[in-house]
């Protein structure tokens, strides 16, 4: 299967977002792929509020089935969430459960004014009423396969499909 070029999608997202963000817009990336994408967008858009990162392990809805994720990273939200417009960034939008968990976690920091969702790829198959305001591409993926964003040593982003 030919996957979309992550670098091209990223450049496209920067174009789409440029009109929508202000310097004081806050951005939050979801570990790990979403945080890589957010780092890139944050830099290219010249945002001044420091980038936030979320590890949603403590908010996952499958904890009682699958247990705690093996390698949990600390979430860092280095700005006041209360009454702020937040751009939430993830690499792949799928069931919507990760985004639900991320929004629950964000609300534990304060009550944002609004949240927009930015994703590189939407692979469909949603299980919750969640949609992205900014999306690089839609790409159907066989059930059971994992579509992920990778980053090489030079910082280049690329999509890959894990069986």
């Amino acid at each position: 299967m030919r996957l979309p070029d992550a670098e091209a999608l990223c450049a496209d997202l920067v174009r789409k977002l440029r009109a929508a963000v202000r310097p004081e817009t806050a951005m939050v990336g979801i570990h790990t792929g979403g945080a890589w994408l957010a780092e890139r967008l944050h830099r290219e858009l010249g945002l001044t509020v420091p980038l936030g990162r979320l590890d949603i392990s403590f908010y996952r809805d499958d904890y009682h089935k699958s247990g705690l994720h093996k390698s949990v990273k600390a979430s860092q939200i280095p700005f006041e969430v209360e009454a702020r417009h937040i751009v939430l960034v993830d690499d792949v939008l799928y069931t919507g459960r990760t985004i639900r968990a991320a929004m629950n976690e964000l609300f534990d920091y304060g009550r944002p004014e609004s949240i927009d969702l930015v994703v590189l790829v939407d692979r469909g198959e949603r299980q919750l009423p969640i949609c992205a305001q900014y999306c690089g591409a839609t790409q159907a993926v066989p059930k059971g396969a994992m579509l992920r964003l990778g980053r090489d040593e030079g910082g280049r982003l690329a999509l890959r499909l894990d069986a």
Partner: protein
Amino acid sequence: MRNPQLDARGELTHLLTLEGLPREIIVRILDTAESFVGVTEREVKKVPLLRGMSVFNVFFENSTRTRTTFEIAAKRLSADVVNLNIDTSSTKKGETLLDTVDNLSAMHADMFVVRHSTSGAAHLIAAHVGPERHVINAGDGRHAHPTQGLLDAYTIRHYKRDFTALSVAIVGDILHSRVARSLIHALGILGTPDIRVIGPRTLLPTGVESLGVRVFNDMRQGLAGTDVVVMLRLQNERMGGPLLPSAQEFFKYYGLTPEKLAVAKPDAIVMHPGPMNRGIEIDSAVADGPHSVILPQVTFGIAVRMAVMSILGGS
């Protein structure tokens, strides 16, 4: 024989002792705890992991501090918490330990945090409850106090990063100390090359060297060049007994004063599991001084207990 703390897949399902635990399990607990430290700085200091689960703190031996930190940890994970102080008088009514546990299980306890004056009590309960229930040893007799050992290891890692270059001294009543035993096991598993125990002969267990420690009776010799000094609480009830002549004499030889601490490394940290006896095992000038990390230990203890509970609760 399988380690009774691990399930068939090798995942931690009870925490009874640090002895014999795989290094990666200890590192995972410490890493997870690091992520929980940030949770307490948020507006909502809670995560929903243990929502719907009930944690029973069952203390057959009194300990306000340990019970409170377990209670806070469970509440920050959104669990329902029930505290039971079962002193010896109620067990004198005739109910056995396992009958008590069965009754609490019938009240839908998902996790037991157990403190008992008898070594092995937590093991006995873990072997008795079904696979869907988890047991955390919060101190059993002289045997083990694994979450204290983990929070001590967390504190050392926080300030010193790398265990493989460290010299750690544990000072005082090693003989009666489950804190010392658990810390010695944790340090050994994490690769600490130089672990020392310092105390009078009467308060050092015979054969303590077999745990991989060096033994010192002279405190200045023992503290020379150490990175970490862990002071143990001297239990008042042992004073004046056959093992110890007097508090004053103990302080003279084994109390941590600025003068004795001066032979440790200049950036050495001083730890104490609490509650402290000022003027017996530690001088106030040290307890409140720049080397002391005694209060951060308490804060880290909550994050470490959250990490243990969240790993067990999901297993």
